[in-house]
């Protein structure tokens, strides 16, 4: 996962060869949940210890998504140090954001495992998961309850949230809108009446059968070709910048040491 891949998936600007399973095939009625965790700071989040994603880039990506209506509502949860800085720059509508700590605060981790020597989980994530485990698909719990998860007494940092871009009142937004697998369904009340005794169908637009030659596999290692190959004629290219620069340096050093008067002996 790199920053570029992540933003490509979000905005949809993906090379055409990407398979379906690696694309975000969302439309204007999809609710999207984005959860990010790791190390971060004021305005950035670390990816794989070598890259960062900034809050401006993320906000621009969400705006590109909104322009193409790739989401209906977006819930953004971030659990890093100074997490609230990541959602400060959002400017697209219908985004609700939660963060584990405010700017200037650190998010702390939860359980140290003395056997392995590292911490197993972050505090905010732990308490959010504990909260979510009590939600079942038919639950009516709303977002205001999610905002209360992990108060300062448990989390040491102050969780924050941002709802000004969101159109609906958080009171009316169900947790299952983002976390559940609740689909809109309608009862099928109509049927089509089909004539049972119908012959096989002749299409009005018959597919044209393209005559193709029988196909066979290409030879995997054309040994005969390789053995009898003549050496390829390579076109002559003038020497590139590096070679020219190197020779210029050598010539300059030579004439600096031995003096310009030797030039006439060379030519």
């Amino acid at each position: 996962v790199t920053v570029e891949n992540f933003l490509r998936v979000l905005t949809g600007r993906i090379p055409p060869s990407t398979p379906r399973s690696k694309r975000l095939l969302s439309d204007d009625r999809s609710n999207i949940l984005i959860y990010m965790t790791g190390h971060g700071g004021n305005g950035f989040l670390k990816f794989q210890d070598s890259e960062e994603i900034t809050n401006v880039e993320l906000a621009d990506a969400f705006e590109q998504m909104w322009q193409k209506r790739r989401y209906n509502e977006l819930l953004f949860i971030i659990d890093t140090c100074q997490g609230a800085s990541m959602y400060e720059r959002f400017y697209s509508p219908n985004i609700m954001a939660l963060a584990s700590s405010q700017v200037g605060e650190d998010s702390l981790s939860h359980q140290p495992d003395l056997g392995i020597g590292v911490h197993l989980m972050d505090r905010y994530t732990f308490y959010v998961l504990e909260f979510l485990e009590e939600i079942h698909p038919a639950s009516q719990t709303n977002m205001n309850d999610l905002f209360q998860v992990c108060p300062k007494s448990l989390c040491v940092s102050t969780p924050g949230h941002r709802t000004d871009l969101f159109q609906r009142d958080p009171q009316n937004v169900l947790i299952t809108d983002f976390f559940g697998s609740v689909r809109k369904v309608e009862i099928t009340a109509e049927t089509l009446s089909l004539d049972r005794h119908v012959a096989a169908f002749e299409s009005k637009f018959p597919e044209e059968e393209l005559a193709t030659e029988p196909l066979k596999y290409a030879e995997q290692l054309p040994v005969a070709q390789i053995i009898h190959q003549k050496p390829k004629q390579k076109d002559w290219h003038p020497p590139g910048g590096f070679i020219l620069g190197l020779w210029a340096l050598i010539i300059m050093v030579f004439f600096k040491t031995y003096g310009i008067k030797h030039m006439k002996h060379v030519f």
Partner: protein
Amino acid sequence: AAPVQVRLVVPITVVFGPGSVPRDLPRPLPFRDVQEVEISVNLRTSVMSRYEMHYRRTTGQEEAALAAATAREADAALHPLQDTTMGSLTMYVVSETSSLLPQGISVYVGKHRSALVRAVGSLAALQARLREVTQVMSFTASSIATALSDRVPNGQLSPDARRYLKSSLGYEITFSLLNPDPKSHTVDWDIEGAVNRYVKPVLDKLSLVANFSVDSQILYYAVLGVTPRYNKESSSFLLSAHSLPHVINPVEARLGSSAASLYPVLNFLLYVPERSHSPLYIHDKDGAPVSTNAFHSPRWGGIMVYNVEAPVSSQASLPLHVDVDMTRVMEVFLAQLRLLFGLSQEEVPSEFLLESPGNEGLADWELDHLLWAHTVENIATVSTTLTSLAQLLDKIGNIVIKDDVASEVYRAVASVQSAVTKLSLGHLHAAFQASKEAVTSSERAFFDPSLLHLLYFPDDQKFAIYIPLFLPMAVPILLSLAKIVRETRLRKKEPTKMD
């Protein structure tokens, strides 16, 4: 959102049969008239619908056709005499007392592009009725607003608003048979035959709208995510309406889809309940069993529960062999397909009698309905896409536009202009094709991988990166240059000094 002004032109021919001409015609027949109605979706999006009416009397052949016994026969006889270009409508007005239309029915809508309308006294009343018919057979303000649903101000579109399939170049249809209990039931379904006999005619008719591909699969040990409850009164199992929304997700993980295609997938699932949960009925909100025993989810597909008759003797050997009645199944699946596309007959007024399209699946005017909505949707999408692309390019000043992106943008603009022009001339089919090309080009331009904003650094970031590298290096170079300049100036002055 970018401003969109589109004019939709519907050419309508109104043919007055004998005894049906209203008394208060402004001019003698034949004459033409134009009615314009504006549908405004938001401040910058307005659709002007223009109905070009041509009123005339019947010809001899049409009169003979109208003398048929039933409306259906009359419609069939009139079909070869009509103008059948897409988007056009023909309405035959029959006298008030005509027996062609059954009692209580004032309009008979055929399965092509014509309707038989019972005359009303005055021209104004007749025009009101004709307008009703036109709206059913072409588009209404709400169908256009739904097509432009991403422009409707939030809050005006109710959360229950119809979510029909978005306009796309193609759709993939997957029929799946779910058999959770193979030990009890061996289910045979002749899906290939059913697709050839029932599905292909419908898809053939819809092929003007999009490309369709069909595949099928059988899944064993796939259960619904919800445990049905036992209903003592009817000694059957039931799935209540509020448990249906939780059924789809657990099953969806096992369905799979073709990795290569990016078209939306429509899944039609046939579920044969386990022997221990048979028979299984779906109940609606009021607790009554649903006659089709099926439900569908907008933009996803449909699920039908197929109950196996209990064997006559309880000692019957397991597994029972089940031969699925594909006609009954396809009647439901194809109805669900129509509903997913938004072709529902429930909003039609009760005095209208609609001819059943039969095995073709949809009437010609329903196809027109789809084309109107999809063309308007495509034009709006192209306009939004290109405007947003232009905004992106304005924002990132140093973005590089490749030649092929530029040519796609030009092509998209030309196609969408052509689509709008053709719509205002009343050529629906050509306008739809142009709008499809416009969408393809604009999407290809917008989603080009080279336009990722991450790749283009704003100038201040470039300064911030290069200055710490080059400034320390540049200091001695600049100082030496200054020294050289000073020395040359001194040397120039020296010859004068020597003298």
